[in-house]
């Protein structure tokens, strides 16, 4: 019952990101060139605004987030097998990887040569990655709750819906990132 409810919740999240992606693709389709450098005003150019992204650091972040999905799945398999220590370590490592991802994202934000005000390119970039980042943070809090509960021995091989829901949420966040990375960085 809990899992069905959680799957429905994730379905609504998919629609939310669907709306944001739609906005991005419409902006892109409307623009004669992408990035829309021609829309920058002389003042923006004078301030040093450039509509470009570096792929290296986000690529590392992608590897980290994708591997964390495998770690949390391993943690779920551990709780199913009754290995509480494995569950605790699995959650702990995933939380660290999530925090590393967020740190990289914040550092990356601080280095970018454009902001939300710099054409629809900046607006869509920060909205999409920002909402994804907020979901990573939410997922990390969810994992911390699960970690505390697992240390208190609240999960068993039979009862661990929260851990499973948490891992499902984490996979969802991961898949959204893969879509974002492909769209924003690889296709560019």
């Amino acid at each position: 019952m809990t899992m069905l409810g959680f799957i429905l919740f994730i379905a609504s999240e998919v629609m939310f990101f669907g709306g944001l992606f739609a906005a991005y693709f419409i902006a892109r389709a409307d623009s004669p060139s992408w990035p829309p450098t021609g829309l920058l005003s002389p003042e923006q150019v004078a301030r040093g605004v450039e509509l470009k992204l570096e792929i290296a650091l986000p690529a590392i972040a992608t590897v980290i987030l994708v591997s964390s999905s495998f770690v949390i799945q391993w943690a779920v398999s551990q709780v199913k097998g009754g290995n509480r220590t494995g569950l605790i370590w699995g959650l702990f490592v995933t939380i660290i990887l999530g925090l590393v991802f967020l740190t990289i994202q914040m550092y990356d934000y601080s280095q970018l040569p454009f902001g939300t005000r710099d054409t629809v390119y900046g607006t869509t970039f920060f909205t999409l990655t920002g909402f994804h980042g907020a979901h990573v943070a939410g997922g990390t809090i969810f994992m911390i709750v699960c970690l505390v509960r697992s240390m208190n021995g609240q999960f068993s091989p039979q009862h661990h819906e929260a851990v499973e829901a948490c891992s499902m949420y984490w996979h969802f966040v991961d898949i959204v990132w893969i879509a974002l990375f492909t769209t924003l960085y690889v296709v560019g």
Partner: protein
Amino acid sequence: MASIVIPRPATYSRPAILDWLTTVDHKKLGILYLYTTMFFFAVGGILALLVRTQLAVADNHFVSNHTYNQIFTMHASAMLFLFIIPVWAGFGNYIVPLQIGANDMAFPRINALSFWLVPPAGIIMFSGFLVDGGSAAAGWTAYSPLARTLGTGMDLWIIAVLILGISSTIGAANFLVTLFRLRAPGMTMFRMPIFCWTMLVTSFLQLLATPVLAAGLVMLFIDRNFGGSFFDPNGGGNVILWQNVFWFYSHPAVYIMILPGMGIVSEIVPVFSRKPLFGYKAFVFATMGIGGLGFSVWAHHMFTTGAVLKPFFGFMTALIGIPTGVKIFNWLGTLWRGSISFSTPMLFALGFISMFLIGGINGTYSAAVPVDFAIHDTYFVVAHIHYVLFGGSVFAVFGGLYYWFPKMFGRKLNEGLGKIHFTLMILGFNLAFFPMHLLGLDGMPRRIATYSSANDWDFLNSLSTAGAFLIAVSMLPFIANCIITFMKPSGQPNDPWEANTLEWWATSPPPVHNFDDLPEVHSERPLFDLRHGANAGH
């Protein structure tokens, strides 16, 4: 008669006020929803009276233009977001678990959260009247560029609608899990009462459409507060994007606002015709059809932008007329040779069928692109939406209240006052909204604060205003009826209407745990089967 005994949970007592504030009981939450939404119905109604007062005569200066914009915006926002959508959550909360023989919703605490998000959202939305520049004033549709430039009231509106969206989305997930997982033994999907089916389809629409509106609201908020360019062509954005995102939600939302009403009517009509619903499965598939097609018609609100594929959206819109027509035949087939009694719930149900039919017909031919170009943004559209949402949804709300009042409170509303209420309401309704068709065809644009006497629109507008006040007067017998009824002792039998579905098996009102036992379920009308034998009417 075989029955299934249900174990009883322990009960304990606490102060009544604390009990109402902390309750997770679906029945109490349902009643809280109903009180809250009826309050906002009254507020929205008062705003409507202000609108009608301003428009009663030509060249009127009862309110300023900017105040007028705020009033009609808040009228629609209150009626749609704070009344019609959550009122179905109220009925659904009270009725769905009882109809499927469950003792509560799947997630009672999430259910309480869904409810407690509604009053704060209402307060936030209306607090716009207290800030500089006043409340939101871009219409409930909040089109850019206007919505990008208004004052803080617009931000409060965005936040309020976002909160209501969250309430609606998690509520929808809760209904879906309840309907999929908590049905009584023997109740297959195709033995679910029809109101439950309409709540199921409505919940799917809410779950999948509301987050898209949330995305749009977030974009608008970023545009307004963080210098975003989503809807600003100067920065490479697109104003039509808002319309696409908004209507991707708001067209399915029209079905969110009407489907549960159709469900209520389909509960009432069979009971007061003494016949099973004609074409139960056809009705279910028609409901699914409306739900599915509902996602493919949003751009019919945008024909005149020239930015949408008109033949596709015109065709899909016309298609929606088919499942809707099926439902009209379901109701007519049920009435046909039935033993009809004109009790108040039935009067409201018949009012729904006839008024919604008018709204449906004038909606269907608006799907034709050339017709739409002629009547777009005129009072014809205002007439259409009110025939669907007032003539439809509001009649169903009152039908449902009269029908389930004995179950909710153990007391039956007075029939005489109920009939006065219905008569005044249907007269007032037609007087208020029928002239709008003619005004629209004569070219009167919607949302204008006043009009010149040279247009000759005075007479029809004053008729419409008189009708609006008659609707307000029709609420007096209803309020009096409620007060009188609440002063009487409770003690209605379980099933005062000789109805069909499981909620009438429980006592009136039901205990916290709803049922001590349940009859066996062999069809979508287990109580009918008990009275007439399991094979009657099949």
